[in-house]
């Protein structure tokens, strides 16, 4: 495919959780999508970092936009604050979905060439998927 794929940013209170979800999503989707983990505070504690989120948004954007998936509610506040000052907020969609399932579903949709809206929809629809 000649067009760029949508990038994914995973924002978690835990660096390990963000990295782990990114690794899992990369493995399941075949490794063709840029997934950037933004977990933990700048000094390595549990929490979220505006600086990390902003860096991740820039790293993940290859021209097709970036979908951001937060793990818990307060990560949303940090992402929203970053987007207020972001140079190109129209290229970013904040998705409301389960962290692991949403990351996997969104990344697979991006790998198949889905656009930003389709990728965010995949993350949000993941809440309806049954495991059992």
């Amino acid at each position, binding site marked *: 495919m000649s067009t760029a794929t949508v990038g994914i940013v995973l924002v978690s209170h835990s660096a390990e959780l963000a990295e782990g979800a990114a690794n*899992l999503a990369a*493995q*399941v*989707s*075949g490794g063709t999508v840029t997934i950037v983990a933004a977990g933990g505070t700048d000094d390595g504690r549990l929490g979220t970092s505006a600086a990390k989120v902003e860096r991740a948004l820039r790293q993940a954007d290859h021209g097709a936009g970036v979908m951001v998936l937060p793990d818990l509610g307060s990560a949303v506040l940090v992402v929203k604050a970053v987007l207020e000052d972001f140079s190109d907020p129209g290229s970013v969609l904040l998705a409301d979905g389960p962290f692991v*399932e949403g990351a*996997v*579903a969104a990344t*697979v*949709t991006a*790998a*198949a*060439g*889905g656009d930003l809206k389709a990728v965010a929809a*995949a993350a949000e*629809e*993941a809440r309806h*998927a*049954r*495991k059992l």
Partner: protein
Amino acid sequence: MPASFEQAITLAGDLHARPAGALAVAAGRFAAAIEVTAGGHTADAKSVLGVMGLGATSGQHVTVSAAGPDAQEAVAALIAVLSEATKVAGP
């Protein structure tokens, strides 16, 4: 009435996360509506979570059916993915 096609395969391995991902990525590139059926359950082939939720295992019969302009190519491509991806061991 769009053309519809269907083909079945016996899995050489379990339909774990990675093969399910490969299947959904391949399916997402087609315009056709594509379904995967195993053990009496059907999932949208473009939904990786749906495909994983089938819990299809080695030796099980899986049917791929598609309807739409590129349905025939889609079924052939997905049967090939299922045949290859379930040969690889691991999750």
